[in-house]
């Protein structure tokens, strides 16, 4: 017996907040605006907690139907929500982290203009994200999918007077569209071949199919297209380019949308549609490869970045790569697990970074920081926790999830594992680089008088309590978040991730799924692998310590010795320029030449203009009927009526 938990409230509460703030917020005081935003977001969080409290009483999956939406023949998509362990986890992460970041942003944005606008966007994002998470069919999910895209666009371009911000917003939007295109096609294929988008129905109809081990087929195509969508949303190769630019947005936004929640939607989607991927090994492999490559690639770029937020952005990309790697090896639970922990520590990292930026008065270049350890102890300690977590040191959260991923990868192929470990090393290296550069040594930047305060170093100040509280909470989470243990987490998710994947599931996933039981036999091998991973992390820590604490001149020498490669890395492998020349410019030219000048101007406009001219010429000849004499008009009418009557009589009596 399941109690009726009104899921619809959870998304609608933030929407209400968004509406109130967006429509009337201009008149409200900042206090009112923030209390409204926090109130509704907190209410959603409370609802989520309540749902969790009901958890034992629930019989998952629990689904809730509200209203019909689209009904065309057999196809049918409704406003209906669907709650299972997976969406429960996502629900908690989104609402929880979202709520914390809301609190944080109150402090962070207090000085900014457009306060109400910011919070209504933030609430709007919460609404769409929750819709995405709770949807019970791909179409509703897609609505949320597009919605978060919109919200992210709005928030990246929040400072719409800054050209770079606007451009970044557009870039994010467009790149996401490319991904969504793939997603959409996947949906169309699903509709065509399985006649539904409802998760349950689709998976039920797919379950009996054989895995396409030999040759690619329909499922592979769908899987790949879904992966394209996921790549767009979750910033994977080749569509990752928008995420670094997205750092133009306010830092809380980067934390919430571009680290904790939205970018993980792709992972969620892949895990959600695992039933399809399980039967498409090739697609699965592609996912794994993309994930692995992205992880490595982004990590290497991250090493050379100097902008604190850019570093975090690239690390986000590479962490997402990890998650996809996990999904690719059919260890979805591991991926989701990492998603959760990552939400904690990456959110924390961004918030802390924001706090740092706040402290040094808007400066984002790490080379101009340093020695902040004593100035902003709270930030420092929380950030430390996060750094260790992401670097994957025991017993921090990151360790468990990342270790799980690596181990699962190793069971498929040691290539993945190797790259993963190397990436782990890189991760730990650039994270500690950031850490050292920011907090150790002595302050290098000239204290600038921004909203930091005074003209000299004394201006560097700790952030207000309102911002520190979330930091602390998240720090605690990123320390303890992993103690759940991947095993228990996997057990928890098993009903979802095994649903529909029966005996006919490809060996890859059987291993992954069976792993929960087989662990004891492989303890030895696992401990070995774990040791190696930890070693890699430690090595990264040592190198960073060496280069950025003990002998600060070392990095330049190395850079010099690396030469071209280093430049390439610094310039992000020139990917943006490549895209610009490969896609953007031809597209622009084509649309200018053909679409605009060719079609729009010479065909459409021409048609309209000529039509107008023709109309004018005709009416010039007819206008003399308009004599202005009422009775002549009446005469015409009478004549016409007579004609009609005659015609009808003729028709009737014929």
């Amino acid at each position: 017996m399941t109690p009726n938990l009104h899921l619809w409230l959870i998304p609608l509460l933030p929407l209400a907040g968004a509406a109130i703030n967006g429509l009337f917020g201009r008149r409200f005081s900042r206090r009112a605006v923030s209390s409204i935003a926090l109130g509704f977001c907190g209410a959603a969080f409370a609802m989520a907690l309540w749902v969790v409290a009901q958890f034992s009483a629930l019989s998952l999956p629990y689904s809730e139907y509200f209203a019909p939406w689209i009904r065309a023949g057999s196809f049918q998509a409704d406003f209906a929500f669907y709650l299972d362990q997976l969406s429960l986890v996502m629900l908690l992460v989104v609402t929880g982290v979202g709520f914390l970041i809301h609190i944080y942003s109150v402090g962070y944005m207090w000085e900014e203009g457009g306060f109400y606008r910011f919070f209504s966007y933030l609430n709007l994002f919460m609404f769409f994200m929750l819709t995405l998470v709770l949807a019970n069919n791909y179409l509703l999910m897609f609505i949320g999918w597009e919605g978060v895209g919109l919200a992210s666009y709005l928030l990246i371009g929040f400072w719409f007077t800054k050209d770079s911000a606007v451009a970044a917003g557009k870039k994010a939007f467009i790149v996401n569209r490319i991904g969504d295109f793939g997603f959409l096609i996947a949906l169309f294929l699903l509709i065509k071949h399985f006649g539904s988008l409802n998760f349950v129905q689709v998976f039920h109809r797919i379950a009996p199919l054989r895995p396409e081990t030999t040759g690619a087929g329909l499922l592979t195509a769908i899987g790949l297209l879904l992966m394209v969508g996921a790549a767009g949303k979750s910033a994977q190769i080749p569509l990752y380019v928008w995420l670094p630019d997205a750092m133009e947005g306010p830092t809380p936004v980067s934390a919430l949308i571009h680290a904790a929640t939205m970018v993980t939607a792709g992972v969620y989607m892949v895990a959600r549609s695992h039933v399809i991927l399980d039967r498409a090994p090739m697609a699965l492999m592609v996912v794994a490869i993309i994930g692995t490559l992205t992880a490595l690639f982004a990590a290497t770029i991250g090493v050379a970045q100097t902008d604190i937020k850019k570093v975090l952005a690239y690390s986000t990309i590479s962490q997402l790569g990890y998650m996809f790697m996990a999904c690719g090896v059919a260890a979805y639970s591991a991926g989701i697990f990492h998603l959760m922990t990552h939400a904690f520590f990456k959110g924390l990292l961004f918030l802390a970074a924001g706090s740092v930026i706040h402290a040094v008065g808007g400066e984002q270049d790490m080379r101009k920081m340093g020695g902040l350890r004593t100035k902003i102890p709270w930030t420092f300690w929380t950030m430390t926790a996060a750094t260790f977590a992401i670097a994957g040191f025991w017993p921090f959260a990151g360790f468990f999830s990342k270790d799980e991923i690596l181990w699962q990868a190793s069971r498929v192929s040691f290539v993945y594992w190797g790259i993963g470990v190397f990436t782990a090393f890189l991760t730990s290296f650039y994270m500690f680089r950031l850490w050292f550069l920011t907090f150790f040594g002595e302050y290098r930047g000239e204290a600038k008088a921004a909203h930091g305060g005074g003209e000299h170093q004394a201006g560097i100040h700790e952030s207000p309590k309102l911002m520190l509280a979330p930091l602390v909470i998240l720090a605690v989470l990123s320390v303890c978040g992993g103690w759940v243990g991947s095993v228990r987490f996997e057990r928890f998710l098993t009903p979802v991730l095994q649903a529909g994947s029966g005996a006919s599931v490809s060996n890859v996933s059987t291993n992954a799924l069976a792993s929960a039981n087989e662990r004891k036999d492989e303890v030895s091998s696992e401990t070995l692998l774990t040791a190696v991973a930890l070693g890699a992390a430690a090595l990264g820590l040592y190198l960073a310590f060496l280069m950025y604490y003990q002998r600060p001149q070392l990095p330049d020498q190395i850079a010099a010795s690396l030469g071209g490669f280093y430049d390439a890395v610094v310039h992000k492998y020139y990917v943006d320029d490549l895209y610009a020349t490969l896609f953007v410019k031809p597209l622009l030219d084509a649309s200018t030449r053909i679409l605009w000048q060719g079609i729009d101007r010479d065909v459409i406009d021409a048609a309209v203009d000529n039509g107008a001219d023709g109309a004018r010429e005709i009416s010039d000849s007819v206008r003399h009927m308009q004599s202005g004499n009422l009775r002549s008009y009446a005469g015409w009418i009478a004549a016409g009526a007579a004609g009609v009557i005659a015609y009808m009589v003729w028709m009737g009596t014929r």
Partner: protein
Amino acid sequence: MVPLSYYLILSGILFACGVTGFLIKRNIITIFLSIELMLNGANLSFVAFAAQWHALSGQVFVFFVMVVAAAEAAVGLAIIIAVFRTRETLNVDRVNLLKL
């Protein structure tokens, strides 16, 4: 026992008279009157058809026609007054500025 077609023809004649009035009269008020005449013809056919099909709705329509006629008369006469105020004539042939 009168054939219903007689009633209908009567209404037709009234309507025709209305149309003719509209066509040949100059005085805008008279034109208005002929419109009312047409409406009356229509009403008669409504009632006649109601008798034909034994459906009272035919008679109900007459009320709506009357209401419309009342509204039309109110507004129309107001317009006529306004026109007379500005043009000092009721002759529609003299109220012919609306042309090219």
